[in-house]
């Protein structure tokens, strides 16, 4: 079975984002970028499937500007076998990404697509579900447990009230949540080896997909900041403030 792992290049999660002065978006110039942390978990899960003999080949795919090839190299350094880069604008929407991924699925015919449940930049939480819809495949979302047995897989989903177990039919889309695994670091020899792994690049326009945006961003602004309050000296003072001043208990 081939496993396709879409990986997104986003601002590193440790970086404090800044809104541009003209309110057109957030500042991306000279900002440290990294693989979306949820996608790292997806790559790790694919590697574990391969190590368990359940997957033969892992293909990392990334959609965006040329720099996204760095993100693919990160996946290759972790252990993915080859990469596909699809050249597209930085701010491409999830619907368009899902359509491009569908084109890749048709070309590559994977048995499983593993992807992060959301990207930490736009926080949309859409791409996996949309891809499943476009392919007519089953979906296991927000997954913290995955057991594949032939034509079926059992996924454990993180839902509001706890956990849900469902059986999905393969091929399937699985979107991964934080607790599925802890991604490995790429070792230096593997980073060197990754440079020689195959990485194919195509242009989004060549895939015959309409990627025109449906949403227009009118304004991006900073949220109102919350002012720091007061320090209280002890528990007694805290309780009296909550009772008499804030009146919340």
């Amino acid at each position: 079975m081939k496993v396709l792992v879409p990986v997104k290049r986003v601002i590193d999660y440790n970086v404090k984002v800044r809104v541009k002065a003209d309110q057109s978006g957030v500042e991306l110039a000279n900002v440290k970028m990294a693989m979306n942390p949820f996608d790292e978990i997806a790559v790790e899960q694919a590697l574990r499937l391969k190590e368990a003999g359940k997957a033969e080949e892992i293909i990392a795919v990334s959609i965006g500007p040329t720099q996204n090839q760095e993100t693919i190299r990160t996946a290759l350094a972790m252990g993915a076998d080859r990469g596909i880069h699809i050249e597209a604008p930085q701010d491409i929407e999830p619907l368009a990404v899902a359509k491009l991924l569908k084109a890749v699925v048709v070309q590559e015919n994977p048995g499983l697509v593993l992807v992060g449940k959301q990207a930490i930049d736009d926080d949309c939480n859409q791409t996996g579900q949309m891809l499943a819809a476009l392919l007519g495949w089953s979906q296991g979302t927000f997954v913290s447990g995955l057991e594949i047995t032939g034509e079926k897989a059992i996924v454990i989903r993180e839902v509001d009230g706890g956990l849900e177990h469902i059986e999905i039919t393969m091929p399937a889309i699985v979107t991964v949540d934080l607790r599925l695994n802890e991604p490995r670091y790429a070792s230096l020899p593997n980073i060197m080896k990754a440079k020689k792994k195959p990485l194919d690049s195509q242009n989004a326009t060549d895939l015959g997909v309409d990627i025109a945006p449906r949403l227009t961003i009118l304004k991006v602004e900073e949220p109102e900041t919350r002012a720091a309050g007061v320090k209280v000296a002890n528990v007694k003072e805290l309780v009296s403030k909550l009772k008499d001043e804030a009146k919340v208990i």
Partner: protein
Amino acid sequence: MSILILCDHENGQLHSTTLNTVSAAKQIGGNIHLLVVGDPSGKVAKAAASIGGVEKVLAATNKALENKLAENLAPLLKSLAAGYSHIMAPANTTGKNVMPRLAALLDVMQISDIIKVIDADKFQRPIYAGNALSTVSSSDTTKVITVRGTAFEAAEENGSAAIETLDSAEDAGLSIYMKSELSSSERPELTSAPIVISGGRGMQDGANFAMLEKIADKLGAAVGASRAAVDAGFVPNDYQVGQTGKVVAPDLYVAVGISGAIQHLAGMKDSKVIVAINKDEEAPIFQVADYGLVSDLFDAVPELEKELG
């Protein structure tokens, strides 16, 4: 304009975020219809019909919808879509699972997790874990929207809408519900509790959460946790407050042994009053706290319990 809202519910109880979603729909304007699925007792449909401003409740009784599987629910929503300008759901795990699947079937771009309605086409939503707010305008004919419950008031339950039964669903045969492991608790549900007390890595051990539970029981509060506490295995993931967990905005939020990482603040910074108890004076949580207590939580928490009587 007509708006269809997918109701969320659990254990036969209408989830309160449905009421918030109705308020968001009212701000858009138009006839509001609610869809209830997976409600064999009819209790949820009845509760939905009592929400003020709702014209009609559609109760889909087909067995294929019982467990709200996205593969079966999205096609039903699609079959209803032609009659509606907006299709909305609370941004809970059900809505997040189903709505993008619907959006792709309709070939529209979903607007996730809105916190403000500007008009029928324009909405504000948080990005980068709430560190920036984006106002977007949609050109799609049907707007598929998920709504952040804490950003809208709850609609009043003073209505009496008609309930219509629907039986037109099919089992796509792609997935089978097996079982749920739901956390059972006598305490209020995290996202709708008036008071939330959360523990972080500073709690040191899952067993120490019992200290917070005692206080929660005195205050009628829900117990939450930071991602660090969940990652460390102290408590299950459904306790998690933050960017990747639940978003809460109670009247009082008490953060105990939580440093205040951006990802955590994203989930609680709209709380009315925030209290932080942390022994590290420099912890970022104090920058958003209305009342900060610099103290070892293992001294402060038992004392707090005593003070509350």
